[in-house]
């Protein structure tokens, strides 16, 4: 059995501010080193290539989530009780309570609303002409998701900050996570109050949870964590995808022309955006037994880091992985995860991102950057913080 010293080691901090702002060179260096790389700074095995990431995601018996999918013991404890942090029966039960509200079938009733809101967002953006891509990207998720999850009107002003902080807290315990920890606890406190006061909007997913607790199908304490399960990952991620799409199309005007010529390419474009600029950097798993991965011994209890963003740029899997091409078949990309924990909200995320792209492609001839992009500092979410754009009307 190879010893740990046989495993390539990567010493730079993958979560330093500079690495967070410019991660892709680190991913390339990791992939170059091998299929399993020891991150000495964070004491985890990183999986930078597609094949191993996929293998681990699909084998949830061996690579469990119930020990948490974050990189620090505090968050891995605080998040207990969520769908994201559970396995087997518990996971199936929790997921079945809400995921059915998010299937493409269930979402059909929302499609007209989402399309209308997207049209309004696009109309407004084109009228202003010079915009911040992130502001444009924020409008639709904020107008759709809190209602669906049932978050009361009061308290919504904090949602984005809280949700971002909840993700930040899943990284290593660096100053970034320490800075945002109070905000992520704020979200938990608020969710508990929503459950206690039964203030989740009628007919919403949160309301379903209250009823499930009344009927004894879940523990009352699970209600609050499960509401966060669905709120925290639903805003920043989609905002990331929409704003990255705008950035990529500004950088590649020929791709925008392709989309204008054939708007049926929108669903493929969404897959390609999530592949090229994966909104979630990485989550972890714990090995439930001594096992082996790509010829490397993985002792029971080891933590492995599934680098979605790196897998999606692996040249062993993709031709010209760094090239953004909406004609590419990117359906097997891992940006939404895969398998048992595959993103429960991807139908909604796809619907929102597609709606905005369709609304803009009708109205915008060209997208041009008018200043440099600024990337957000977040341990888990990869997204723009600000990007000044000019939308040249069609």
């Amino acid at each position: 059995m190879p010893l740990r010293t046989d495993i390539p080691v990567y010493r730079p901090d993958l979560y330093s501010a500079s690495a967070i702002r410019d991660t892709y060179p680190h991913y390339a260096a990791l992939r170059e080193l091998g299929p399993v790389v020891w991150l000495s700074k964070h004491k985890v095995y990183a999986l930078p290539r597609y094949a191993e990431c996929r293998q681990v995601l699909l084998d949830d018996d061996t690579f469990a989530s119930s020990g948490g999918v974050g990189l620090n013991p505090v968050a891995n404890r605080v998040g207990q009780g969520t769908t994201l942090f559970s396995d087997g029966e518990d996971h199936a039960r929790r997921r079945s309570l809400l995921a059915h509200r998010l299937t493409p079938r269930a979402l059909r009733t929302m499609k007209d609303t989402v399309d209308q809101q997207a049209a309004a967002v696009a109309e407004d953006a084109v009228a202003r002409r010079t915009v911040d891509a992130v502001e444009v990207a924020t409008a639709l998720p904020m107008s759709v998701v809190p209602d669906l999850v049932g978050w009361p009107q009061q308290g919504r002003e904090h949602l984005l900050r809280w949700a971002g902080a909840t993700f930040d807290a899943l990284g290593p315990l660096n100053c970034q996570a320490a800075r945002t920890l109070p905000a992520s606890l704020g979200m938990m406190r608020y969710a508990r109050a929503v459950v206690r006061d039964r203030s989740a909007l009628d007919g919403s997913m949160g309301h379903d949870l209250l009823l499930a607790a009344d009927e004894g199908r879940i523990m009352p304490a699970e209600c609050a964590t499960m509401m966060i399960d669905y709120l925290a990952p639903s805003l920043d991620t989609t905002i990331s995808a929409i704003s990255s799409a705008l950035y990529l199309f500004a950088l590649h005007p020929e791709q925008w022309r392709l989309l204008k010529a054939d708007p049926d390419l929108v669903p493929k474009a969404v897959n390609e955006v999530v592949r090229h600029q994966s909104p979630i950097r990485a989550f972890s798993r714990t090995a439930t037994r001594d096992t082996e991965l790509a010829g490397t011994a993985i002792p029971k209890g080891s933590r492995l880091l599934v680098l979605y963003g790196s897998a999606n740029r692996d040249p062993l899997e993709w031709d010209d992985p760094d090239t953004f091409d909406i004609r590419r078949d990117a359906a097997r990309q891992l940006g939404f995860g895969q398998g048992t924990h595959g993103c429960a909200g991807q139908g909604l995320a796809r619907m929102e991102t597609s709606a905005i792209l369709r609304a803009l492609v009708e109205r915008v001839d060209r997208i041009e950057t008018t200043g440099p992009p600024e990337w957000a500092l977040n341990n888990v979410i990869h997204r723009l913080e600000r990007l000044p754009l000019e939308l040249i009307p069609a």
Partner: protein
Amino acid sequence: MKISVDYPRCEGHGLCADQAPDVFSLDDDAELTYRFEGTVVPDESRPAARAAVNACPVAALRVLT
């Protein structure tokens, strides 16, 4: 090549039908239909069927060789 479909797990994302329309389709109710249930996938549809299995985001499809 045989494929097993875990129907309870399928959430109707339809990525399989995009990849292999001759093998998988979704009806108006977003209910999945697998054309070769209980039999084998014909040779000419295999590459597409394999791509469909790989694209299913919740791993509801499995190749049983």
